């Protein structure tokens, strides 16, 4: 009975909110305009040079020379070799889950290929393979610089450089050391990378803003004073106010992805269920942030200010505008606290790399924790009193 009444009140608030929203042309327009304008604006963004990409390697040859090659690749600072894989399949799986951006496969016949290269020069096979998560074209651009890394050899066994040089005289243009295998975005179109990110950015902007403003507006117009003298409970008000925006958030996701697929031919590799689950978790996280802001801001203007205050660092540090791997460490630590950072990884993972949501759970739980913390703080701050 109690629960039923509670649900009744939540539904009443939600329905009221939708009614008001429908009549508020400006807000209603923003629901549609923000995604489309942003999409067009960011659709053609600029790429950056990236360093310190998380990488892993599988070394089937495991010779001194192959280890030297890996060490040199690491020393280039383009990649940071953080793990060793036991198979190429494992490498690919890590790549899909977003744990690494680059994978190096050194074949078992590495030494022979090294010999071939000296003998046949240009026509020889590449020495090793490099797998790149090219969903961010910037990543691929940086890795391209590694492809012609000269293969190091142990000096003891090796003839001196000048003699070695004469041994392959006539070979002026050696074959690339690595053969690149770009994954997920072989054409390296930036839109492919930007559009899923935009889903996150747009949700951050609209969800936080709408919720914070929705509650502050009640306070500003005096209706909160009326509502808190009714049997309505704070949590009912919050949930009832949030629900319509969850729906709006999902509509926006559909809008961005739809337009993205249509105009920018972004591949959508995720199942709808996975997309919805990922979006729901992130929407909830953003809405709870909006709720917290609404308990702090006294006017709609303050709510706007606080929203942008929370929005800007997320925009800059989450990996949407600048590649995450290229940022200095402290910035990365801060970014790890932001919901958008995690959501970008999830949504790119499932949309571009075809990962399942369960495979991305290591990025989902930080979002859930964030939502829980925000909700607790907000509920603590929102009391059914005016003081």
């Amino acid at each position, binding site marked *: 009975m109690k629960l039923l*009444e509670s649900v*009744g*009140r939540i*539904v*009443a*608030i939600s*329905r*009221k909110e939708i*009614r*008001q929203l429908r*009549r*508020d042309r400006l807000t209603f327009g923003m629901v549609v305009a923000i995604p489309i304008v942003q999409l067009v604006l960011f659709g053609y963004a600029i790429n950056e040079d990236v360093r310190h990409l998380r990488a892993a390697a599988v070394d089937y040859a495991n010779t001194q020379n192959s280890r030297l090659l890996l060490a040199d690749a690491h020393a280039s600072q383009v990649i940071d070799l953080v793990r060793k894989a036991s198979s190429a399949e494992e490498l690919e799986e890590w790549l899909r889950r977003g744990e690494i951006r680059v994978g190096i496969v050194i074949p078992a016949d590495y030494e022979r290929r090294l010999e071939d290269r000296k003998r046949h020069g240009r026509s020889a096979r590449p020495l090793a393979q490099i797998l790149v998560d090219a969903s961010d074209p910037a990543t691929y651009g940086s890795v391209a610089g590694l492809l012609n890394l000269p293969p190091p050899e142990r000096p003891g066994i090796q003839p001196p450089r000048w003699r070695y040089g004469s041994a392959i005289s006539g070979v002026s243009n050696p074959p690339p050391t690595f053969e690149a295998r770009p994954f997920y975005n072989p054409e390296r179109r930036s839109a492919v990378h930007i559009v899923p990110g935009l889903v996150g950015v747009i949700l951050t902007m609209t969800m936080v803003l709408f919720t914070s403003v929705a509650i502050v507006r009640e306070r500003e*117009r*005096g*209706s909160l*004073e*009326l*509502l*808190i*003298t*009714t*049997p*309505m409970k704070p949590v009912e008000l919050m949930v009832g106010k949030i629900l319509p925006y969850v729906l709006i958030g999902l509509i926006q996701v559909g809008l961005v992805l739809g337009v993205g697929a249509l105009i920018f031919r972004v591949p959508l590799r995720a199942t709808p269920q996975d997309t919805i689950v990922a979006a729901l978790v992130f929407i909830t996280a953003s809405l709870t942030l909006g709720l917290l802001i609404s308990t702090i801001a006294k006017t709609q203007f303050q709510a706007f200010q606080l929203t942008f205050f929370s929005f800007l660092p997320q925009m800059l540090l989450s990996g949407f505008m600048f590649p995450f791997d290229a940022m200095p460490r402290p910035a990365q630590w801060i970014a790890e606290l932001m919901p958008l950072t995690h959501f970008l990884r999830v949504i790119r993972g499932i949309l571009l790399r075809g990962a399942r949501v369960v495979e991305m759970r290591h990025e989902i739980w930080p979002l859930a924790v964030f939502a829980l913390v925000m909700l607790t703080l907000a509920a603590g701050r929102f009391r*059914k*009193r*005016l*003081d």
Partner: protein
Amino acid sequence: MSESAEQVIRSQGLTRRFGSLVAVDHVDLEVPKASVYGFLGPNGSGKTTTIRMLCGLLEPSEGKAQVLGLEVPKEAEGLRRRVGYMTQRFSLFEDLSVFENLDFLGEIHSLKASHRRSRIDTLLERYRLADRRKQRAGTLSGGQKQRLALAAAVLHEPELLFLDEPTSAVDPENRRDFWESIFQLADEGTTVLCSTHYMEEAERCHLLAILDHGKLVANGTPQQLMDDVDATVVEIQTEDPRRVREQLAGMTGLLSLAQLGNRLRLLLHREVENPVWQVEEELDIDAGATVQVVRPNLEDVFVVVTRDEVS
């Protein structure tokens, strides 16, 4: 029924501070059931703050209050279904229609759909809003908005109704109508606590408390207050009020002097004997003024009690 059981509101030493400002200062109240209880006071005298504390919207800094037998603010949740509150500002949703506003609040109060509909119909009829049913609340006139706010406040048939300056945005005719509605509610058993700064409204109340600078400076029935006023009221009819004013300025025992057209209203200390004679003494013979003692009205009461406060 014992006397205390009939008190719907009791407060002892109710106090609220905002920083160094004492908005409400040790207010003791007793509001009997089914009465229309008025709060009279100028702006900033603590009327709204007192009402908010009694609703459980604000926590008292000191003192305690019982409303409908419940301690506030501790048990304020239990009051929600039994109390109606009409805020000073129109606080319904301007972008919802008249019906939608009431329907929404009905749902918040968990009124059953069929009962809700019939109750809304009754109220729309009673408060002459039936033809405005589909109109957005924001486009209603001042009087209509006020009647809608009243309908919203009594939708769930509360035992106690708080009205915070309900008529401040309304013309005199609507104000008269509104008071008819208030008495109708009181007749039906609802206790009404209504704040106002209009004397003629205050005079209609069964009981009245006068607030000034957060303190309760007088209370009782309007008649009692007027009878007990600690001053003599003298009215002077004159062709030249300005001149008379000047002549009276230094008179001993003069509490206040106000001009109403060609009349001057004087409040004199009770101790002043033979007030008419005393006043005539002060005036020039040729002033052509008629002087008489009149019955005090509520404004006189107000001037006297709030004057004491200052001195």
